[in-house]
């Protein structure tokens, strides 16, 4: 108790020196929490967007379907099971095709989805057939890469279920903007009915997207249920890798903060030698001096947490509401990145950061303080540099 009282007295008595140190350390708290919050917010947003735009609450895949092998597409479709014709599902038929934007040849994935589906966020309501034209949807990335605009006509070639090539003009009925590149780049979305007719696969689908997890238990021969965990595994892997990068940043920020404390403590030992000698002459044991200096260092982090809270809490709340605008070119990274990321500050993140900084600050303070124990008190009293 005495050590805490004296440490607080020393810190507050040191005035500007203490407050400078505390403010620098408080920056570390706020920046670490802000940065980690941003990463967490990004992860949350990426998961949310993938669920909303691509995977919903789970999917049934035709047993032959392999998203990484386009050759499987030809045979991986079958009649939609009757059990899966409720409103809570969105069957998707997938096949390969070719488009010829500005005379170039480009391979695309054609995906047919029910025009009235409500499961995915795709604006399928725009797939309204007018004048016998086939309306299609493309994403903004696809449109930009191929210089396509809404209302443009595009030549589309595909093979039907018999392997026969066919081609037609399709009209771009809408261009949607999404943070999920895997439903955008190289994809053309048509109505399920159109694609079924084009490929002579009436009533068939490659996968059935489920709007409810309750369908997970259904057993259907020829179809395999893919859970949310399975479908998000790749994203989780990316998040995991990103977390490693984030941890490095976390450690770097922490090291900077600790360096500030360590530096201050080392400086204190040299500057306050006379004071330390006096402490010992007045009857403090070396252990008590070490404890005092360690608590002083640790207390810096307590004061820093309080100071950080004063300006950090409003700042982080504001950032949480306003979001963080991502630079334009991040759109092409390949994973779901929103234009604006809203940080996510969990209680665990805040508490964990505070505890880690406090514990590390205390350890870092102890190391130079331990040196004090080796100081010759008679020289220390005179302030002789040792």
């Amino acid at each position, binding site marked *: 108790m005495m050590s805490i009282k004296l440490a607080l007295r*020393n810190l*507050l*008595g040191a005035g500007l020196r203490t407050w400078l140190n505390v403010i620098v350390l408080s920056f570390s708290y706020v920046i670490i929490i802000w940065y980690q919050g941003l990463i967490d917010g990004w992860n949350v947003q990426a998961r949310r967007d993938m669920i909303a735009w691509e995977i919903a609450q789970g999917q049934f895949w035709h047993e032959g379907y392999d998203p990484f092998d386009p050759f499987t597409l030809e045979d991986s479709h079958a009649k939609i099971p009757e059990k899966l014709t409720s409103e809570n599902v969105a069957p998707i038929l997938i096949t390969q095709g070719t488009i010829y934007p500005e005379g170039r040849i480009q391979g695309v994935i054609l995906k047919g989805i029910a025009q009235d589906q409500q499961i995915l966020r795709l604006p399928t309501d725009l797939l309204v057939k007018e004048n016998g034209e086939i309306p299609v949807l493309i994403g903004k990335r696809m449109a930009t890469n191929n210089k396509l605009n809404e209302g443009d006509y595009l030549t589309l070639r595909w093979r039907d279920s018999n392997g026969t090539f066919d081609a037609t003009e399709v009209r771009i009925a809408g261009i949607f903007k999404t943070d999920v590149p895997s439903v955008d780049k190289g994809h053309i979305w048509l109505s399920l009915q159109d694609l079924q007719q084009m490929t002579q696969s009436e009533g068939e689908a490659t996968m059935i997207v489920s709007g409810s997890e309750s369908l997970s238990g259904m057993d259907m021969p020829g179809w395999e249920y893919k859970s949310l965990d399975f479908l998000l595994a790749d994203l989780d892997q990316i998040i995991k890798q990103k977390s490693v990068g984030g941890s490095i940043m976390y450690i770097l920020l922490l090291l900077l903060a600790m360096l500030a404390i360590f530096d201050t403590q080392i400086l204190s030992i040299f500057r306050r030698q*006379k004071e330390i000698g*006096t402490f010992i002459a*007045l*009857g403090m*044991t070396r252990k008590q001096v070490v404890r005092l200096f360690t608590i002083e260092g640790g207390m810096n982090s307590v004061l820093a947490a309080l100071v950080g809270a004063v300006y950090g809490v409003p700042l982080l709340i504001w950032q949480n509401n306003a979001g963080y605008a991502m630079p334009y070119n991040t759109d092409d990274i390949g994973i779901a990145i929103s234009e604006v990321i809203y940080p996510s500050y969990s209680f665990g993140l805040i508490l964990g950061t505070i505890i880690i900084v406090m514990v590390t600050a205390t350890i870092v303070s102890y190391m130079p303080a331990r040196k004090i124990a080796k100081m010759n008190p008679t020289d220390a*009293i005179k302030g002789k540099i040792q």
Partner: protein
Amino acid sequence: MEKSSIIEINNLVKKFPVGGGFFTALDNINLSISKGEFTGIVGPSGSGKTTLLNILGSLDVPSEGEAIVLGNPISTLSHKQAAQLRNGHIGFIFQTYNLLPVYTVYENVEFPLLLLKMPAKEREQAVLEAIEWVGLNDKIKSKPAQLSGGESQRVAIARAMVKKPEIVLADEPTANLDSENSHHILRTMEHLNSELSTTFIFATHDEKVMSYLKRIIRLEDGKVAKDDWKEVKEVAS
């Protein structure tokens, strides 16, 4: 009536390593100091005054021989025991005051009592009493940087005296003070010596201090050259 001895020094030798050899700072010192003495260890620079004071204050240990302070053989004390001896029974006054710069006058004087874990009420009373002894009631909230040299040394005296120690060790207490301030603090210490029977031991070569001493132990090249009471009277007169 013969006074009881509180410090016994027997064949004390202190050597410091210098280069490849040793420098003998104190050479075969034998002394006995009684309770209530107002004694000075005098001598030129390098004669070993401060070294002897440091050993008596358990801040250093003899190389050979023995120094027994209040019944404690200094060379056998652990760090903790030495700290307890200083904390409970010895007050220090330094040439450069050594006040804690971030503390107020009150807090500086209070510090030794915090180490003694004295209850708050009793502590406050003792601190105010000590500050009154040295006449600094109006500077109670000042920090050392706001004090003159004389005032700083008076705070140091209050800090040394607040726990009413048996022994006060003063190392060149007037070296940085002008004549008026020197006499002021010496009179204060003389008064406390007679009032509280505290033993004062000075390390000094200041003539002004010598004029107040009741006993002068003269060191030359680490040896006791003179130890007498008679010289005091001569100097004082």
